[in-house]
């Protein structure tokens, strides 16, 4: 076995060890540990990706001396290292770019605990990406829930604590449903590892046995993950959670955490339920419908907001809708588009939160649009970053958002019945997106009754500049040269299918 195959295990364990040690360190040291860790994880992911490309098939990594169905396992093809690398870099960008707000929002004695939570989140995201066992998935989902709650409520204002309670209630209902789904599955198959589960499910589906318990298990697990990732009727925790957390946390929660759950769901669909079973069950139609409604409702709610953070948060709800629409559409092209959109959103949303925070700070800390008039002139760097993020959200060419929408439309053209509604939903949602993002851009670039103040230079905010450069660079380069990424995703999907 090549050495690179050990790297997923080493990165998870390194995250856990760093998390344990960071609680002893001072704030600065803990911050550097997290940054170096994220870089190391990204480098390790690159090495694993090279390995996967070389071997051309998925690798199963035994955790211990026992193969499946007895021991835990990790499994990775192209998708897992690719996503873990991107997630680690986005986490790096968030913690670097939001570091000034962290100092403002979090009391000194707790800042090192913030980085503990970040390390743990990275560990759980990696575990959710790499795991080949549903119960391990459940355990790490719970760590993810608690750690996300940690980075949310670390800001000591009443609204964040309330938002944290809501977030926890939704999340716990989600994980409770997921757990009981796993138990149902275990009761019928006697397995917890994905390959054995898939074989057993296919057998039950093919045999004349009653399919009801199986369907119930699939429904419960899917529903649990939908609630946790904030699909349309369950998105009510989103505006408060993303709107009042410190910007770094908002970026991590919206860009990474909910995406980790969606990736796990895609993994379950392909590796556990099996493509044929899932797309014959009818659940995909529900996901499709909720996704389409979520795209429109999320955008309408965003339009009605008067607070820039809450507007961006509601736009997240709409973007989650896109991803679920893709999952519901079709197993190959639909999921391909969804995977691409996960990356798009993971790269774009943190940029929006970080730059919005820069604009708000330049406008005296007032988050309402009235106060943000001309904010881009007070902080040109943040204004530019917000503009790029907005254009990507609208889906203008040269950005990743355009490619994602193109892929969704492309996937829709293979459908007969759902072609028109998909295109219609894409069009309506794009128009709404364009409406409220353009309105925001016009406001922040407004020059009418502008007080002549010295603009905030990029040199005075090097952390933000670095993070924004990373995110903008990734967004534009992947938007212009999208083909290699799409090829990678397609190869990765072909490996799993």
């Amino acid at each position, binding site marked *: 076995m090549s050495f690179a195959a050990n790297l997923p295990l080493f990165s998870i364990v390194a995250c856990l060890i760093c998390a344990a040690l960071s609680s002893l360190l001072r704030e600065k040291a803990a911050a550097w540990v997290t940054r170096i860790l994220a870089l190391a994880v990204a480098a390790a992911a690159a090495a694993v990706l090279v390995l996967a490309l070389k071997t051309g098939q998925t690798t199963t990594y035994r955790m211990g001396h026992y193969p499946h169905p007895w021991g835990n396992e990790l499994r990775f093809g192209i998708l897992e290292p690719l996503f873990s690398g991107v997630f680690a870099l986005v986490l790096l960008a968030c913690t670097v770019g939001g570091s000034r707000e962290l100092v403002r929002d979090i009391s000194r004695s707790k800042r090192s605990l913030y980085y503990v939570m970040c390390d743990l989140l990275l560990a759980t995201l990696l575990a959710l990406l790499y795991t080949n066992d549903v*119960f391990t998935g459940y*355990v790490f989902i*719970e760590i993810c*829930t*608690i750690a996300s*709650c940690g980075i949310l*409520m670390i800001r000591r204002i*009443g*609204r964040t*604590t*309330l938002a*944290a*309670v809501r977030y*926890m*209630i939704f999340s*716990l*209902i989600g994980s*409770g449903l997921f*757990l*009981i789904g796993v*138990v149902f599955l*275990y*009761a019928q198959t006697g397995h917890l590892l994905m390959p054995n589960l898939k074989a057993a499910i296919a057998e039950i589906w093919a045999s004349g046995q009653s399919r009801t318990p199986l369907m119930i298990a699939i429904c419960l697990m899917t529903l649990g993950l939908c609630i946790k990732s904030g699909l349309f009727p369950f998105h009510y925790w989103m505006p408060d959670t993303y709107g009042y957390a410190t910007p770094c946390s908002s970026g991590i929660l919206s860009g990474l955490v909910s995406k980790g759950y969606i990736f796990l769901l895609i993994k379950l669909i392909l590796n556990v339920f099996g493509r044929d079973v899932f797309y014959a069950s009818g659940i995909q139609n529900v996901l499709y419908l909720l996704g389409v409604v979520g795209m429109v409702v999320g955008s309408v709610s965003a339009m009605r907001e008067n607070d820039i953070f809450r507007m961006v948060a509601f736009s997240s709800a709409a973007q989650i809708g896109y991803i679920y629409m893709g999952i519901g559409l079709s197993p190959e092209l639909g999921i391909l588009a969804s995977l691409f959109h996960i990356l798009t959103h993971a790269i774009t949303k943190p940029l929006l939160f970080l730059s919005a925070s820069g604009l708000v700070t330049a406008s005296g800390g007032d988050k309402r649009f009235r106060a943000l008039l001309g904010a881009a002139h007070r902080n040109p760097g943040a204004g530019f970053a917000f503009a790029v993020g907005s254009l990507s959200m609208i889906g203008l060419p040269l950005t990743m958002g355009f490619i994602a929408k193109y892929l969704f439309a492309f996937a829709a053209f293979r459908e007969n019945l759902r072609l028109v509604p998909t295109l219609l939903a894409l069009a309506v949602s794009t128009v709404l997106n364009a409406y409220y993002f353009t309105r925001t851009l016009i406001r922040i670039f407004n020059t009418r009754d502008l007080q002549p103040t010295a603009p905030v230079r990029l040199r005075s905010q090097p952390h933000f500049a670095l993070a924004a450069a990373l995110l903008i660079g990734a967004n534009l380069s992947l938007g212009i040269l999208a083909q290699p990424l799409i090829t990678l995703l397609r190869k990765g999907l072909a490996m799993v299918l």
Partner: protein
Amino acid sequence: MLDSLWNNRIPAAAVLLFAVGFTTLLLHRNLLKKIIGLNIMDTAAYLFLASLGYIAGRKPPIITDGNTDPAAYANPLPAGLVLTGIVVSVSVTALMLALTLRLYRRYHTLDLDKIYMMARDEQEDET
């Protein structure tokens, strides 16, 4: 129907408890009651899981007399999973209680709606 219900009485009781916990979690505005509902829900899931490991007439899977015949013992895996699950539930409960305590110290009530209204008022006198 009744026959299969009787055959699966423990799992049936477990899922009913799960639904009770689920409803309690949704229905009550009092945070402590919500936490109680959450615990009922989790415990019901573990009861369901534990019931899967039971095999009528067999011993617990601790090999004290050197007999390693699998046909003599109950299934150890669900017990292990329940153990894992219990720790998760303890951790989550502790966190929820800590959140409750903090909200209570700030707003002097456990009613989530009242807290919500007060949090709103806070912003209203601000603006």
